[in-house]
């Protein structure tokens, strides 16, 4: 989870305290569609977890990224 939060905070240039599971990437953290693609790549690189483009298309919140990574890390 920390790696995901760090990757998102670094990419968007926001304080990590704002990167909470319930935060909407677009509405709360002001990301755009390309940011989500870039963050997916950053999270893959940070965690080693592969996220498909279909899975990425359904990501809305920080929690969605965390769930994806956690479900594939186990």
């Amino acid at each position: 989870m920390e790696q995901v939060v760090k990757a998102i905070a670094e990419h968007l240039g926001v304080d990590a305290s704002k990167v909470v599971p319930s935060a909407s990437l677009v509405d709360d953290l002001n990301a755009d569609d390309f940011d989500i693609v870039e963050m997916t790549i950053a999270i893959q690189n940070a965690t080693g977890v592969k996220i498909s483009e279909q899975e990425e298309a359904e990501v809305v919140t920080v929690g969605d990224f965390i769930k994806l990574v956690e479900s594939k890390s186990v």
Partner: protein
Amino acid sequence: MFSSLKIGLLIVLLAGAGGGFMYVKTLKADLATSEANNQKLEQSVEDQKAVITQMKADFEAQANIKATLQKQHDTLKQEFANLDKKFNKINGKGEVRDIGTLANERPDSVERIINKGTSEGNRCNEIAMGSPLTEKEKNATKKSEINSECPSIANPKYVPY
């Protein structure tokens, strides 16, 4: 001789009366002409006042239109800058977005985003040509709900963060 004098005096009196009559008649005619001219002048003044009032109203309307156009221009300029930023955005680590690299790595994702942008752009054209806004467009307040290509015309309730 006395009667000749009377006749002469009578002629002089009649001539005086006739001259006086003609003078008064001419005066009356001049007065009527002056009154007519005066009325025309007053009407002209009223017309000019109306023209000035209309000009003031037109000037105010033009000033309002100019202000509205300026506001629209500023908004569109900002939206254009936002669109430009979308393709050249610098992330929190100072890296400039590279759409080509992204398209190589995640082609389906980039295609989906481009298609969404194209669809939204087409909708912007429809709205600009008079298509009424849908309820969803009217009520959109969140960034995830708006038409990101032209929120100023598509989403009146949206206030950019």
